[in-house]
């Protein structure tokens, strides 16, 4: 299954990368995730997912410029590529397809 489907957290991370456009690096992804989901995303977990996404060929990474913060260490920036975009769209389509066949009263009984 690996490589074809996205896990739930993977999808979130990938979406965040897409949302951050050119500023997606591990700490920023963490912060953004926390802001939107309210979950306390652990750096180690995010790091592992970023690594896995790159391994699956959904994102590309490159090292940025050295800065005075971070003890002089460079950031690794992630950018979503076409395969990644396709994977996101695919996931969205699957969901939308499923949403469309659910009758309204099942999800929202108050209607």
């Amino acid at each position, binding site marked *: 299954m690996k490589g074809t489907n996205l896990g739930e957290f993977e999808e979130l991370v990938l979406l965040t990368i897409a949302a951050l456009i050119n500023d997606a690096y591990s*700490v920023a992804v963490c912060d953004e995730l926390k802001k939107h989901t309210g979950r306390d995303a652990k750096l180690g977990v995010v790091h592992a997912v970023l690594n896995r996404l790159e391994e699956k060929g959904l994102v590309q990474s490159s090292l940025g410029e050295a800065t005075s913060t971070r003890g002089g*260490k460079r950031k690794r920036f992630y950018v979503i590529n076409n395969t990644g975009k396709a994977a996101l769209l695919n996931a969205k389509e699957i969901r939308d397809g499923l949403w469309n066949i659910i009758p309204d009263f099942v999800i929202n009984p108050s209607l």
Partner: protein
Amino acid sequence: MKRPIDPNPPAHQPPRWAQQFLRWYCRPELLEDLQGDLNEYFERNLLTKGAAKARWIYSLDVLKFARSYTLRPPNPTPYFLQNIMIGSYLKTSGRSLVRNKLFSVINIIGLSIGLSVGLLVIALIHDLLSYDRFHQKRDRIYRITTTQQSSQGAPEQLASTSAKLGTICQQQVAGIDDVVLLRRGTTGDVQVGQTRLPLNSLWANGSFFNIFTFPLSEGNEATALTEPNSIVLTQKAAHKLFGDVDALNQTVRMDSTDFRVTGVMKDIPFFSHLQFEALTSYITLTRNPAINQALGTWKNVSDTYVYLLLPATGDVRKLQVSLDKISESENARLKQTRITTHLQPLMSIFLGQDLHNEIGHSVPSSVLWVIIGLAMAAILSACFNYTNLSIARSLRRSREVGVRKVLGAVRGQVVLQFVVEAVLIALLALVVSVGLFLGLRTAFLALGPSFAVLDLSPVVIISFMVLAILVGVLSGLLPAVSLARINPLQVLKNAPALSLFRHVNLRKALIFLQYTFSLCFIVSTVIIYTQYDFFISKQLGFTTEHIVNIPLQGNPGDRVKKEIAQLPEVNGISQSQMVTGLGTSLGTYVKYVDPQDSTFANINGIDEQYVPLHGYQLVAGRNVLSKPGSDNSGEILVNQQLLKRFNLGTGNLQQVLGTRLTADGETYQIVGVLKDFHYGSLYQKIEPTLFRYAPQDATYLNVRLQTTDWPATFARLQATWHSLDRVHPLIANLYQDEIQQVYQPLSIMSKVIGSLAFLTIFIASLGLFGMVVFTAETRLKEVSVRKVLGASEFSLVYLLSKGFLGLLLSAAALALPLTYWLFDQIILSQIAYHAPISVFDLVGCLVFFMGLALLIIGSRTIGVARSNPAQVLKAE
């Protein structure tokens, strides 16, 4: 990979170990990103949560990041070989050796002295551990040892045990494969045809060859000792008795009994705790009713040695329980003694417990530990020298390290470089030390340990190399680590980085330790030698001057006495059963009126000339009288301790005379009281002692000689002896020499520790010299400036020396009381009669020591203080 040098490091840093750990485990391509993330979080946490919490979270995160995808794949070559540039290390090491000839020589000499002591100990340990290895079943063989606790006095631990127990083990005890009983043979001679030869033999039963690995070259191992009157000879003994004739099935005569030779065994290996020339069958003994009864007596624990062979799956603990049960039931029949038995593995017989009544050689393992401890002190001392000098000199090498680091050397490589250098020097020292070792070996063997040969076997040589490498690593590690810490920016920017001197305290501590060791050794030497001198010159309560003791070796005392008395030089002659003052003793149980109250007393059989010849002092009564005839053995002389034991003669000593005592079923009458004297050695307290008139039991002649030409006198004694006894060579020892022989171990010990003291002092002096030279060199400019400003030469010498002198004095302040306490409280307190430790000796040692140190310190500091400041300062 290198951390950039931050000129203004922030106040708070993540924990160093965590950073290092991360760097160690993380894949290089992921490392920078990870480090950056963690740093960012750390900085954030620093602001929100405080430094401690931030550091804690950082460490935790580092641990959490260790996941399969971040881990560095294991490297097939070990880390320390990865970037090794051994050629370069060797080259720079060689150059630095040559450039600093003085320091190199000091280091190599110091290390080689330390190493040679180590080599000696390695060879010695190797010998000690070689004993009894040739027995194929060695791991299954145990000996039964005995603890005998009488109602009074300390328990005595014996290597021997009761023959009865051996027999019980043979018949009733489960969990034993085989049992061999050994018993010392009579010291009598063996006669073959007309030749008589003394032969050192053991009684042994048929299981002997099953348990021990002593192969027979002729005869059948299974049956050789099963028949009565069988004897097995070693090849050497067989050759001695029969020459080239085949010894098998020949007959030899011992004590009027004929023995048939049923086997000839290969000669006994040197490394065997059992040493004998012949084995006679144990069953011969049991055929003799009188001896057989003695063998069946539980209390008789001093003649028989029992060795057990356990099954491969044997349980020692279970067996011990069975033995304890036997002891308990047998002890129930004893009144005043308790006998318990223990199992001792064969491999710890030679090197193990210190037991009385050993069957052969043995060395207490405590001796080994003491020797190892002493050698360690010498080796460490040499290592300290190296460490000290290297740290001190690291200033000179700091530039080199700086350049190496700039060119990309990591810390591990710098450490490795200096450790390699130290190992190299240690190996050079090994070459020198092997030469020293050969000399030391000759000296050590000359001290007379008969249990070691100190041969160089491959194992020993490999151990030598290992020791040298260990010493190299040990002595090189500290300087290497301190050099590797150098910050290249600092050393390359401005010359001497002062942070290098931060090891000053360490260096001082090392010198301090060296001098403490040396002082302890030298003081011990002096104390032990004083004791030895005290022992051999102490008045024992009788005179030994001009007296020669001659063992009769089975000859009739009266006849030999008569012949020897005719020599013109002899001006006194007596007979005795044993020789007093040498630590050997004969004993018996003596009773007074109460048949239940017996006491152990030392005993000696003497004739009427013995007491006057030795100048024993009678405090009451008279000497024993010579009464030719049969009922002459009732007279005894007792010492004051014996009277005290029975509460006799408290009022008037004269009343004691005529009192009857019983011993060994005979009644004796006290005719005289001897002033207390030293019957045993000075290690033992004076115990109840009695002399009985028994010239018929004499085994020694005591001859007082009046002569100035000893060799001629001895030649005449020899001639007289030879006319009486053609078999045994004359043994005639001066009483004084025999007493010295008793305390020989002390003399050996003082020589060994004395040589160690010499070596450690030598090493420490080398080290001190090196440090003084170094200090003097580095402070040359300071001294010159002071001199220009008007300091006197004396004040400059004082300035340069005071640090060292303070160190030495504090070493003395530790070493002297420590050694004093050790000897006074622990060692000498076990010796009944010993010389007090003289404070004068201690002060003498200290003065000698400080004098030597002053000489060494002065040799350089005075030169520096006298130097012309103009010349020194001109160079600026």
